[in-house]
């Protein structure tokens, strides 16, 4: 009996998976646990595992196809078995997401999915943006939906708890239900008009090719989450200048010795970020109000520091999380950060390695950026923005102008949770710790 392998939900926010490559060919024998394909989600590239035994009868999805969760990827069965794809999928076409225009030779002509070439680009983005499973309604167990959305969902048999609301406070509205069913928005647009294309006349050779670039899953999520944060969270910003001369000396001393040793003897090369993460965890210990989140009708206080670290990757940004950073030393933080950053660059981070942060640090210290303010990574109550260390004239304790080594650190805070004085106390604590870096060796 043939069995369908469908697109599993590989991350919390995933709505479609892009088939990157087949690891098994049609006709190959499959054992349970075999990896049959590589799938790119909005966050990472992951392997698709088979749970059935048999022969891979058909690769339904083609390389490059975007397949919605639950959509058919492959069929496994007995050797020589005839398969009736329509019967297997209950007569319904597999829930294939409308796909980009791909090269003709990549298209699987026999894939029975309804190919919607026209509105593919925008509707895909809509789906990605609006069907993300939302954590907000779960906080009080209620799903917020407009009366109309409720009625529509009932009519179409959709579980509203699986639909992400795009209205105020995450309210599910008509468009969200329609997006969840894959139905076209219909004649009743809610007014978002496509920007008119700008005719480009260029003199000289162009710096890049004109055209619309398809949104990656990651880009959609970044756009949506940061838009939500910047429009929903009342940000305010504080900045302090830290004397990093002692920290730089400490790091140089440690690295001078430790970087010579092999790993088994404790060899390691520490980065400035490693120290800042540790110092931040210690500062949060002193001002725990910052290690919290707005909960609507309460403030969520966190007892542990799970430190999110913004990591730039090829086509975007991910935030892996160092769990229990408050309980870890610089060495361990350094090792974990290296591992997580490596996985991030290779898109191998697992969802649980990117969730649950209670505070986030973003550093542009490797660039000549003297200071900046990040957008809060919800639901965190703050984000630390670390600039580069620069040498500059400063006035010392004896009122003499000397050469100082200074770093500007910015904090963006959610004013619903953190008031100015609390944010200032946090940055003050951080400054004190960084300027007396021996404190973080304990």
């Amino acid at each position, binding site marked *: 009996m043939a069995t369908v392998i469908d697109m599993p939900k590989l991350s919390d926010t995933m709505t479609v998976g892009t088939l990157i490559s087949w690891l098994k060919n049609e006709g190959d024998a499959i054992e349970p646990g075999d990896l049959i394909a590589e799938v790119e989600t909005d966050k990472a590239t992951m392997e698709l595992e088979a749970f059935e035994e048999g022969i891979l009868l058909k690769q339904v999805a083609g390389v490059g196809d975007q397949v919605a969760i639950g959509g058919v990827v492959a069929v496994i069965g007995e050797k020589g078995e005839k398969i009736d794809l329509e019967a297997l999928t209950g007569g319904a076409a597999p829930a294939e997401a409308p796909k980009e225009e791909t090269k003709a030779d990549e298209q699987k002509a026999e894939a029975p999915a309804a190919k919607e070439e026209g509105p593919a680009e925008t509707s895909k983005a809509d789906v990605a943006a609006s069907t993300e499973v939302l954590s907000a309604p779960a906080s009080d167990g209620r799903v917020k939906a*407009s*009366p*109309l*959305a*409720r*009625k529509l969902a009932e009519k179409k048999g959709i579980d509203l708890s699986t639909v992400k609301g795009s*209205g*105020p406070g995450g*309210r599910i*509205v*008509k468009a969200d239900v329609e997006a969840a069913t894959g139905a076209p928005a219909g*004649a*009743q*647009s*809610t*007014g*978002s*008009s496509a920007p008119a294309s700008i005719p480009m006349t260029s003199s000289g050779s162009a710096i890049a090719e004109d055209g619309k670039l398809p949104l990656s899953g990651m880009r959609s999520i970044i756009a949506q989450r940061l838009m939500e944060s910047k429009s929903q969270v009342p940000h305010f910003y504080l900045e302090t200048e830290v004397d990093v001369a002692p920290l730089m000396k400490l790091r140089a001393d440690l690295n001078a010795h430790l970087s010579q040793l092999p790993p088994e003897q404790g060899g390691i090369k520490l980065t400035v970020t490693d120290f800042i993460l540790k110092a931040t965890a210690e500062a949060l210990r002193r001002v725990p109000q910052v290690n919290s989140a707005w909960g609507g009708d309460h403030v969520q206080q966190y007892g542990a520091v799970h430190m999110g670290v913004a990591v730039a990757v090829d086509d975007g940004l991910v935030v892996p999380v160092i769990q229990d950073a408050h309980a870890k030393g610089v060495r361990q933080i350094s090792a974990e950060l290296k591992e997580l950053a490596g996985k991030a660059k290779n898109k191998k981070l697992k969802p649980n390695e990117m969730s649950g942060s209670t505070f986030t640090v973003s550093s542009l210290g490797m660039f000549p950026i003297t200071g900046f303010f990040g957008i809060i990574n919800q639901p965190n109550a703050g984000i630390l923005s670390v600039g580069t260390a620069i040498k500059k004239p400063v006035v010392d304790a004896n009122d003499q102008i000397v050469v100082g080594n200074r770093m500007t650190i910015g904090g963006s805070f959610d004013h619903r949770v953190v008031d100015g004085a609390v944010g200032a106390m946090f940055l003050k604590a951080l400054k004190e710790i960084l300027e007396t870096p021996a404190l973080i060796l304990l």
Partner: protein
Amino acid sequence: MQAMEEEMERDDKVMIMGEEVAQFKGSYKVTEGLLERFGDKRVIDTPISEAGFTGLAIGAAMMGLRPICELMFWSFSYVAFDQLFNNAPNVRYMSGGLANVPLVIRGPANGGTNVGATHSHTPENFAANTPGLKVVCPATPYDAKGLLKAAIRDNDPVFVMENTILYNDKGEVPEEDYIVPLGVADVKREGTDLTIVAHGRATITSLKAAEILKAEHGIDVEVVDLRSIRPLDEETILKSVRKTNRVLLVEENKPFCGVDAQISHMIQEKAFDYLDGPIKRLSAVDAPAIYSPPLEKLQLPYPELVVKYALDTLR
């Protein structure tokens, strides 16, 4: 004016009374030429005594005439509150149907003309709150004529609340006899994305906002002009709500217990399952009419503000 002239021509029981309606031709020249045409038995200047002449008119109406009273401002109806909001609406009921009051009270009821807090009231909600009264608020010259003619022919007291700012608006008005029936709203602009319900000048403001929303945001707004506040055309409102699923109510009435409070309640009661978001309201700022002209303009809904509320409604 045309309405009154035509109706006076048609029915010799129709007569006009009010302050300066005859020799001065009306404070806003609405009754110009009527004295010459119909004489001083049917076009009567009254003393400055609203309680007196409206009481007189109610009596005349009970006896079979069809008086039209002009109030220089609807704000002055408060002087005649007992006559207008107590006697006029209750005569038919209290007399067991023996006496009707085919009376029209008309005049300007609007802010925005820098005449101060005591001259800028919009009491359509008071009237609509009173069983036995009918109240209309025309937004266009066409509707003004048609509604006034319908009011004159109605056998119950009808309050016609005009807007002096709209007196200068020019619009297509057929010369021939037509009426705009009481209790029939008008879709002044068709749209698919949002329903704006308005009455009086707020309709004109909303239509301007609708143009901006179309041009700058690609949003198709449907504008429903109530025309009659009571009787209320619920079906036209509900039909539009069922079509667009989003509602913004715009009025120059004050918000607290204003007309749109009732409309809002009616919509949620009768079209709850068609709403894709909360009903929003934009009314005059809840304060006495502000005397400072720049502030007074901001107190009343203006197109840019309607646009802002509309976008908010669509969130």
